[in-house]
């Protein structure tokens, strides 16, 4: 058993969650409880896969892949796909004032369905015997790491052995934390999520903030899906492989008390908890049932955090006050 390897796996497992939770925190800070995040991440992943698939197949010689294009095309496709999901959610909840929970859950179902539909289509297109699409060329470009990773042994493996999307996730989380705490637009956004009527009276556009936060949040979350396929899964798409990572990302939002900077450590912890059964299995052999029980750990931890914060009742640790509520200006 190798600690460095475990940390490495925990991080790669945690990065999609970090993207998802950072995106969801920004969204929730605007008062939108986007339960469609699992669907958004799913769509982000499949959009990237579709882009990469057509790029790779347009090449005569797959070994002469252009790394810049191989990264840019899936990246843009992913951002576009998740942006559309964010727009759908915003339009339904902010413009049409549909119920946020219903819309979010519908969006998750929709996103997973869309992903599996197009995933299935691609699998049909390659006419392979296996039920997956492998994009090894694209994955190779996404997985490129710093050359120094191998030079520092375990330290290198723990700190430098990740792809650019992993570092981007951490950077985005830090930027999001600073944005929310230290900037005027961040203050405005938090105000919208806490009390939209007050924000409105202060001259802040509630709809604009909700749209922006939800769309930007969705795009960030979508990147988590892309990272999962291109890096974690080595460019192999198979339907439903993404699993419950979207829900874990939402649990992580609660676990980190709506703080993207805590989310960096939280995501690695969740990643570790998600995997720990593999490593435990080496010492104490256990059956699949027990392993699945251990895999529940992140959810159990989230419930514990909910219990503790609810008991302590510290106002700063509570969700945005108007989370999940629609805003009507002329409602008396």
């Amino acid at each position, binding site marked *: 058993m190798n600690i460095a390897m475990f940390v490495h796996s925990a991080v790669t497992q945690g990065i999609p969650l970090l993207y998802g939770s950072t995106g969801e925190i920004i969204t929730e800070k605007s008062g939108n409880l986007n339960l469609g995040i699992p669907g958004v991440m799913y769509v982000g992943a499949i959009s990237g896969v579709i882009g990469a698939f057509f790029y790779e197949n347009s090449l005569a010689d797959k070994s002469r892949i252009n790394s810049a294009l191989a990264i840019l095309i899936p990246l843009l496709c992913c951002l576009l796909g998740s942006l559309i999901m964010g727009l759908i959610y915003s339009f339904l909840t902010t413009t049409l004032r549909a119920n946020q929970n219903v819309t979010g859950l519908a969006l998750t179902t929709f996103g997973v369905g869309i992903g599996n539909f197009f995933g299935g289509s691609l699998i049909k297109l390659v006419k392979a015997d296996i039920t997956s699409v492998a994009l090894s060329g694209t994955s190779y470009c996404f997985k490129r790491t710093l050359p120094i990773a191998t030079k520092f042994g375990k330290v290198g493996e723990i700190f430098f052995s990740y792809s650019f999307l992993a570092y981007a996730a951490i950077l985005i989380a830090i930027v999001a934390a600073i944005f929310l705490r230290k900037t005027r637009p961040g*203050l405005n956004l938090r105000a919208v999520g806490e009390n939209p009527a007050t924000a409105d009276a202060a001259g802040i556009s509630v709809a604009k903030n909700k749209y922006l936060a939800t769309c930007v949040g969705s795009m960030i979350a979508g990147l988590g899906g892309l990272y999962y396929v291109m890096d974690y899964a080595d460019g192999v798409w198979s339907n439903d492989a993404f699993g419950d990572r979207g829900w874990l990302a939402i649990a992580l939002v609660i676990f980190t008390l709506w703080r993207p900077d805590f989310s960096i450590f939280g995501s690695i912890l969740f990643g570790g908890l998600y995997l720990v059964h593999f490593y435990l299995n080496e010492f104490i052999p256990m059956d699949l049932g027990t392993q699945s029980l251990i895999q529940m750990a992140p959810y159990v931890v989230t419930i514990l955090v909910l219990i503790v914060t609810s008991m302590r009742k510290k106002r700063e640790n509570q969700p945005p006050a108007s989370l999940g509520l629609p805003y009507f200006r002329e409602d008396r």
Partner: protein
Amino acid sequence: MERTEAIALKNITKTFGSIVANKNVSLHVFHHEILSILGENGSGKTTLMNMISGIYHPDEGEIFIDGQPASIQSPRDAYRYKIGMIHQHFKLIDVFSATENIVLGMEEGIYDLKAAEKKIRATCKKYGFEIDPTKKIYQMSVSEKQTVEIVKALYRGADILILDEPTAVLTPQEIRKLFDVMRRMRDDGKAIIIITHKLNEVLEISDRVSVLRKGEYIGTINTAEANAGILTEMMVGKKVSLNIERSEPKDLQKRLTLTNVTVLAPDGRAILRNVNFTANAGEILGIAGISGSGQKELLEAIAGLQHLKSGSILYSNPETGREENLRNKTPMQIRNLGVRLSFVPEDRLGMGLVGSMGIADNMMLRSYRKGGFFLLRRKEPRDLAKRIIEELQIVTPGPQTPVRRLSGGNVQKVLVGREISSSPTVLMAAYPVRGLDINSSYLIYNLLMKQKENGVAVIFVGEDLDVLTELCDRILVISGGVVTGIVDGRDVTKEELGLLMTKAHHREEEAQ
């Protein structure tokens, strides 16, 4: 002093669906003056002000600011025209500090909370406000929150300040402080509009008074030439007798007897300590006390919503002559005992009514168990709703309109109407006239009086000592959860009540 016009409204009209909130209203406000806008509840005062502050847009009419036509499309526009409104329900964000709330939505140079704090302290010093800019709103008292709101408006350079019922939530000392600040702002050249329905405050603070009635502009007079009689007449349109006609209680019968009732708060502190009293059928028992002294818990204990640590609540049933102990029974068990208890709670839309349901459906909350085996019987509640709307003159588009869309006074009428309709033997009402205008208040007083004459034991929790001494036959004074006296409503003076209301507090302080 030269008087320049700060703001002028010309023929403003605003409707919400079929309800006309403002009709053809014209108003002028000058710099260096305090204008009161006086009107009953639902007379359109707040709606009118919301149009000046950009929350609503007028359907018709024009607004002039400093003589120029102004188009106020949003609150941000209002700030640009130097208009600041202090809403009745504060527009503050609880988890933000005072400074964060004050700078919210402002675009001035770089984002620097420290610099803003300094500027806020300077403003506070100038007008004599006392607030800590770093304090979080949820840790503040109501008065502090209001101060933050006023500082917020001033910080944005407001020249025209609108205060919507600013005194409703303040203690007399805080009101005095607020009025001092208002005068200082007026002398600084600001135009100040204060919305209120308390006549004494209008007479004390304002230079001129404009009166609205049912959305229409009635007139403006100089405060120096006004008195309570003139203003009341302008406000209600007809002369309202300010005396409550209290009938002598007759045929008194013991109805409720509370013995040594003690109720603990979740944190273990005693909210009610050894409360003893008797409520008789055929009289109104008033409960006086500083708010939060245990009035709410007392009523809830009787209604079966509070767990009693000790003591007993005995109900003498007039039909069977038996005595039932209501201690720690659920409301359902109490009703099954044949006890006809009606409760008008303080929190009308939270505890009393369901805001998103219509009047008819709200009536069913009391009668849903009647009807067939499976289906509800809807005709009776619907008829009852229509009767209550008619008898209590409730202004509503129809019995199916969600009650939360109605104005405060009408909501209260729905609740009181429902509770009385079940012909109770005990009627408990907590602050039934809070937020109501004079006309609606008297309607409620008369309803309570009629119940008393019908032999109901009425328990009335009030805050206005004048009303308590005019309405109630006996007044129980509660302070810090302890009954400090039960006095005759006909003999007692306000000063005596005031003393009793603060009595136990002193004892507690001495004990510490």
